């Protein structure tokens, strides 16, 4: 996989900007591109109707922003297995642009992620899928905002998490449909499975709606493992630990559906297996 910072990639223009580095993607790139951690702010611009698969492996404390022009599509994977810190991401979507993101966080370090996705023009779509694990003493906060500014925009957020030991996990999702964003759709699901007596979980899928003609839904659930599911699996001979493990895997594994790179997908599976 080519490295956005180190390799020279055909159809990606790199230039210095006021804040850091600006990468302009001029044409669709078929192979996935890797963006590592970096000390400067990074801005990525997808030109009209361009498509890009972008993989970010380590967290970066410097702000990163992404601008998708008309009809552009960004398939965006974030994998976090070791680094912690606070991340800030801004995504700006123009007419009919689409941002499809999956975030797999199985690190053993505390972590805060702030994402603002602005659906600036008509027909823009944003999808965010998260699978997160809290272990040991870690504190993880995921603050995800979708702001609908134009009609016929759509956002879907699905946040799934598991907390164990003394860790804490917080999902704060906000879908804000502004006045004039008619016929927009927003949906949020936030679910956290709690394993141990001292861990903490908080799931807040918030809807702010300033327009009448919209479709919006939100759901939150947190609790212990479903006793009926456990009984069902154990009634087929699975030991309690094994049944719990299978159910937990089932909770976190679906994120792999959204990981586009096979190697990364396998790495996520391996980390889920090893770390739960």
């Amino acid at each position, binding site marked *: 996989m080519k490295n956005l910072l180190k390799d020279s990639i055909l159809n990606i223009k790199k230039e210095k900007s006021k804040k850091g580095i600006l990468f302009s993607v001029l044409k669709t790139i078929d192979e996935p591109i890797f963006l590592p951690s970096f000390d400067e702010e990074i801005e990525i611009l997808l030109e009209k109707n361009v498509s890009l698969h972008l993989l970010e492996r380590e967290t970066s404390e410097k702000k990163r922003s992404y601008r998708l022009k008309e009809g552009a599509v960004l398939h965006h994977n974030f994998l976090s297995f070791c680094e912690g810190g606070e991340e800030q991401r801004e995504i700006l979507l123009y007419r009919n642009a689409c941002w499809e993101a999956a975030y797999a966080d199985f690190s053993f370090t505390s972590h805060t992620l702030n994402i603002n996705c602005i659906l600036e023009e008509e027909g823009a779509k944003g999808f965010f899928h998260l699978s997160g694990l809290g272990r040991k003493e870690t504190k993880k906060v995921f603050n995800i905002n979708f702001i609908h500014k134009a009609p016929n925009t759509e956002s879907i957020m699905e946040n799934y998490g598991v*907390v164990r030991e003394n860790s804490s996990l917080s999902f704060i999702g906000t879908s804000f449909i502004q006045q004039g964003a008619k016929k927009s759709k927003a949906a*949020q699901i*936030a679910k956290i499975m*709690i394993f*141990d*007596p*001292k*861990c*903490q*979980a*908080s*799931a*807040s*899928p*918030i*809807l702010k709606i300033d327009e009448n003609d919209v479709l919006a839904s*939100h*759901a*939150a*659930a*947190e*609790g212990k493992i*479903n*006793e*009926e*599911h456990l*009984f*069902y*699996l*154990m*009634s*087929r*001979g*699975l*030991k*309690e630990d*094994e*049944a719990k493990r*299978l*159910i937990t*895997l*089932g*909770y*976190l*594994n*679906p994120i792999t559906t959204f990981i586009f790179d096979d190697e990364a997908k396998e790495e996520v599976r391996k980390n889920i297996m090893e770390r739960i």
Partner: protein
Amino acid sequence: MDTLIFRNLHVSVDGKEILKGVNGTIHAGETIALLGPNGHGKSTLLSVIMGNPKYRVTDGEILLDGKNILSMHVDERSKNGIFLAMQYPSEVPGVVNADFLKAAMNAHREEPIKLFEFYKEMEKASSKMSIPMDMATRYLNEGFSGGEKKRNEILQMMLLKPSLAMLDEIDSGLDVDALTMVSQAIEEMKDAKRSFFVVSHYARLYHLIHPTRAMVMINGKIVLDGDPSLIERIDHEGYEWIQDELGIQIKKEEMTMNSTSIGTCGVKESLNRKEEK
């Protein structure tokens, strides 16, 4: 399994007694029909034998070949040959059907099953139950129709080969063809060492699987234990005659409303503390 005996079984759920001294014996090779009006404890008895922790056994014992299984975990009961095809099988999101089946089969074996052997067995059972192989890659029972769920239960029974298969309203939600398919699978699995304990409201299933005995449960007790002619009589006359002949007042099923909760929408927060005992 040679025998399963339940003796003076008293069972409560949420403080309400459902089984009020149930007695019965299942011998190897028998197919027993368990009948009774709705809400009188048939499913509870099956769940208790399987070990559902929702139910509290307040008195009595369940002996599998002389060994009290009440102290056994659910998985141990399964490994001892007990199987329950559930009336409402759980949908378990994210758990892939094939992964679950393989884990279940491995739980009943000393050595893990080889992948090729597993697929061969699964293909054979799936084909018998007319379950497309792509269902193996779907999540366990999620999005399955009522009939698919029931056929998936029978598929599991075929793969796990229990010595006591308890089938709780396995015919509900099945069309005529699927009912024939399920009953054929049951018939083919019958042997001198395997027993079936089958709950159904309809004689149609019983006609296809030929029970050797019938039990009738009323008001949380088995009030009749006899030959299969009981099935025909109940099918034609209902349960009223039992009331008259045995002098038992049959309690009507209680219709209760679900509890309602009013709270803030969409926000969940908990500081998980140790529950006070």
